């Protein structure tokens, strides 16, 4: 087993265990904190995949903003659900069954992948420069870039409108 694989197993275990804690913990603040562990694991995974920009952005956006939003929302609605009450639907065995079936199906599909054993090829160039030029070059992805701005504008206007409605 190489160093890469050891790191992958450690990070993968961190991601899966903390993800399981996210969906099973009763205390929702703890669930949000476990989510942060999952997200951090994903960031480490991106770093091992040479997507360094995404690794850092994952921490900035997910941990720095989204997770904190979650913690806030839990704090603001906490009176409603006490931690010792059951946090799952009565139909949770069905949910578990569906989730397991999904995993089985996905694993089956992944097993049939023709390039399952592919290994990392040499990095073509500086990925950061290539990414930044692809994102704004008119031949590549400038339209998604501008549309993302419109999407976020819509989200801002909509969310603030909903949140402030009396």
């Amino acid at each position, binding site marked *: 087993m190489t160093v890469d694989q050891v790191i992958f197993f450690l990070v993968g275990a961190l991601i899966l265990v903390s993800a399981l804690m996210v969906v099973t913990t009763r205390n929702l603040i703890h669930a949000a904190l476990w989510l942060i562990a999952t997200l951090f694991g994903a960031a*480490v995974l991106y*770093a*091992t995949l040479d997507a*360094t*920009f995404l*690794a850092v*952005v994952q921490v*900035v*956006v997910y941990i*720095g*903003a*989204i997770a*904190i*939003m979650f913690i*806030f*929302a839990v*704090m*603001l609605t*906490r*009176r409603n659900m006490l931690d010792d009450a059951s946090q799952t639907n009565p139909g949770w065995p069905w949910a578990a069954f569906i989730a397991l079936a999904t995993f089985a199906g996905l694993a089956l599909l992944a097993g049939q992948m023709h390039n399952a054993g592919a290994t990392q090829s040499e990095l073509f160039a500086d990925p*950061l*420069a290539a*990414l*930044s*030029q692809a*994102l*704004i*070059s008119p031949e590549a992805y*400038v339209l998604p*870039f*501008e549309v*993302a*701005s*419109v999407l*976020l*504008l819509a*989200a*801002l*206007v909509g*969310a*603030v*409108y909903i*949140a*402030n409605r009396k």
Partner: protein
Amino acid sequence: MQNPWIYVGLFLVVGTIIPIAALVMSALLAPRKPNPIKQSTYECGMETVGENRVQFKAQYYVFALAFLIFDVETVFLFPWALSLNAMPFFVALEGVVFILILLAGLYYIWQKGMLDWV
């Protein structure tokens, strides 16, 4: 080192261990004599009334919301800023359009009075 991220990983590990070591040292050396008064919630000498994890106003949430959106948008701006030198002039204008759309959102919530603390 070939990959700087290995160094960063080591740095993160060591940087977390050092504060933990300080706490462990303190736990070994410090006395430990708990009593109910000492452990009660500190409110400048007043008796604590009601639950401690109280809810505060929801308006803090509006600012967190605005922050979330602007944070994501600024992350989009970093690739733009990186490639200005390598691309022709109109690329700068793409970013300007992006920022203007962003400022339209800010203008909207400003006009709606949602940036005012009430």
